[in-house]
């Protein structure tokens, strides 16, 4: 076989995407994806380093040089097989992973130019497979063991997929009416189309995973019942961090103040952006989204698309400290979102009808680094000013849901409500009960949650086999 001709272009092949002034008025996907030629060309930028640093940056340990080599050869299906061996949701990861801090952050090509577009290639391969390969999946031979997974978000789905591939009979219990968790209710359609999420979930069903929606574990069934009369030998808790935080400032109960969770759930899960949706959402003129993470960017970009004239991101630190993915910040700026950094709201103002008519903010400056290593924001004295808005969306982070913790005796949690686990395996204070993802870490990323699901699946397999004397 002839050696692949390397592409030494210092820059990534640009991602074709919708024009910012068109896309900020629709909910179609922003990035359009590489063509096959672009993908092959970009794959040829990979140096196939022997020590593959990219791989050490991947929470689910994808054989990155391996799949990229196959793309460079034009064998996209072989590339997909490598990807799917490690990731249950490649079409999702290619779109939402913070690659700049992970695989691409470690890429050698990134030293003297831009790293290889690993995320874009992953997305291309997963999309290519979905569009071109329709061979039905054969479920593996059952091994006779039953595992329950609580929560059909990225962590639970990953654990379910890995366990199903090992022959376990897996049932996933989901509280909402559709599976997908944050992939469905949180991340907007224009960043992660919902039929792509459902396609990945259909793949898990084809592997034999049962998904039971409308099941709030802790209410309709407890973990003790699942492990008792229902005969599940182990449970993986991946119930996420769904409880929204508010600031505790005056006026937060006014009409027009949303948690980002509520705003995004109305828009994404309940499809309030469609003209015939039965779920209402406020038609806003001027919106302030408080916070600087991915969720804040998503909420701001949704508000813009729903027709708001002006949308602010209000963040108490500076641009450099924004915790959101770089690409999301860039996309938001291109779409006309205004960043009011070093700004913090102190009061929400009411009109005569109990609706938001503005908010009082203070300017901030950065002081000494705090415990998180980030410079602590300090209020500038006498800097109060009023911002004219009619809607305020609080994207300040979320805490784990207490429902399971409160109904499972002997399940230990810390003072933030995060379930305590013993090391990366995810074993909790209860035997055969594992936990991972945001339920353990507090709000983090899709890919870290998936990594935790993978580790837990391995640990559950080991524990069940050891108990059954099959190891």
């Amino acid at each position, binding site marked *: 076989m002839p050696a692949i001709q390397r592409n030494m272009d210092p820059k990534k092949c640009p991602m074709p995407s919708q024009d910012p002034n068109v896309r900020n008025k629709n909910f179609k996907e922003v990035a359009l994806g590489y063509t096959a030629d672009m993908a092959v060309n970009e794959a040829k930028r990979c140096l196939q380093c022997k020590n593959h640093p990219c791989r050490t940056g991947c929470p689910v340990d994808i054989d990155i040089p391996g799949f990229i080599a196959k793309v460079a050869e034009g064998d996209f299906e072989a590339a997909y097989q490598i990807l799917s061996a490690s990731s249950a949701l490649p079409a999702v990861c290619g779109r939402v992973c913070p690659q700049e801090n992970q695989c691409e952050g470690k890429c050698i090509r990134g030293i003297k130019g831009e790293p290889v577009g690993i995320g874009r290639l992953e997305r291309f391969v997963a999309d290519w497979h979905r569009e071109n390969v329709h061979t039905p999946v054969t479920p593996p031979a059952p091994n006779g063991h039953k595992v329950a997974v609580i929560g059909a978000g990225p962590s639970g789905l990953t654990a379910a997929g890995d366990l199903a591939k090992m022959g376990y009979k897996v049932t996933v219990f989901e*509280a*909402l*009416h559709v599976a997908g968790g944050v992939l469905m*209710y949180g991340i907007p359609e224009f960043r992660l189309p919902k039929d792509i999420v459902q396609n990945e979930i259909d793949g898990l069903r084809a592997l034999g995973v049962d998904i039971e*929606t*409308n*099941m*709030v574990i802790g*209410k*309709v*069934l407890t973990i003790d019942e699942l492990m008792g009369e229902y005969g599940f030998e182990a449970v993986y808790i991946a119930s996420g961090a*769904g*409880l*929204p935080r*508010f600031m*505790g400032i005056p006026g*937060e*109960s*006014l*009409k027009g103040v*949303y*948690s980002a*969770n*509520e705003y995004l*759930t*109305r828009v994404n899960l*309940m499809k309030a952006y469609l003209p015939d*949706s*039965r*779920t*209402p959402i*406020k038609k806003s003129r001027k919106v302030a989204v408080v916070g600087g993470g991915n969720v804040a960017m998503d909420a701001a970009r949704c508000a813009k698309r729903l027709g708001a004239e002006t949308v602010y991101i209000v963040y108490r630190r500076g641009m450099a400290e924004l915790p959101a993915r770089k690409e999301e910040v860039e996309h938001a700026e291109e779409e006309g979102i205004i960043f009011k950094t070093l700004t913090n709201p102190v009061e929400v103002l009411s009109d005569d*009808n*109990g609706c938001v008519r503005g908010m009082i903010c203070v300017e901030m400056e950065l002081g000494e680094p705090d415990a998180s290593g980030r410079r602590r924001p300090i209020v500038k004295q006498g800097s109060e000013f009023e911002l004219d808005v009619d809607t305020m969306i609080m994207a300040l982070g979320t805490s784990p*849901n*207490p*429902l399971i913790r409160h109904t499972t005796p002997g399940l230990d949690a810390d003072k933030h409500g995060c379930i305590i686990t013993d090391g990366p395996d995810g074993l909790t204070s209860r035997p055969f009960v594992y936990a991972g993802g945001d339920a353990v870490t507090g709000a983090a990323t899709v890919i870290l949650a998936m990594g935790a699901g993978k580790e837990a699946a391995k640990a559950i397999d080991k524990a069940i086999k050891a108990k059954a004397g099959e190891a």
Partner: protein
Amino acid sequence: MFKIAKKRSLNPTVTEMSIEAPLIAKKAKAGQFIILRAKDDSERIPLTIAGTDPVAGTVDIIFQLVGAGTMQLNTLNEGECLHDFVGPLGKATEIDGLKNVCVVGGGVGCAIALPVARALHAAGAKVTGIVGFRNKDLVILEDEFRACCDELILVTDDGSYGQKGVVTAPLEQCIQNGANFDEVIAIGPLIMMKFVVATTKKYNVKTVVSMNPIMVDGTGMCGGCRLTVGGKTVFACVDGPDFDGFEVDFDEAMQRGTMYRDFEAHAREEQCNLLNQEVK
């Protein structure tokens, strides 16, 4: 899918359905609620559970045809299925240790007051029921209340049935006559609960109210159902729906309840048009 085992009309604007949901029927307690979606494009509607039959595996819901969602729900008939039905959500009403209780129900809120009255009766408490309706045609569940109340006082706004007036008058009279209630449990429109609390506060009779704010998921995720209780923000779906009536900020709750009034009016009109077309 959740089959409608039984459906009956309680009055021209209120419908009762028994839904096949065996797991929920086994667990649900008085005061808890469910969330349903009639069809796969419907909104999520929270409804407090009106009764359960753990043996038959059914959960009863009673709803008023107030908006597009409940009108759409009412188009489904016996034998058809609800797309989604999840619960039991929220905390159950606390009835332990209560010996002498007044249960106050207003309008369709009586549907939720009934299981509480029944549970208290079953636990051996003396139950005084005070139920109020706008007029005779809108009276529901009278026989059911009589069966579990030691005394039942029925009032209508216009006096077309029972005593004329609102629930607070007989409530105050009972208290003045030395009824000596351990607790008053009030379930109905916000304005009714606000005035019940204003009445009982004068006599310092502990009063529990069941709040029913706008919500989406019902599991603590959206925060849309937040209320101010005792100066603190709480979520009705996970911290309630029952709260100490003396502590609830009713004015704020009433304001928040009007958030989508325009949308709802429009949606109701659309749904009516849709139903009219189907009739034609």
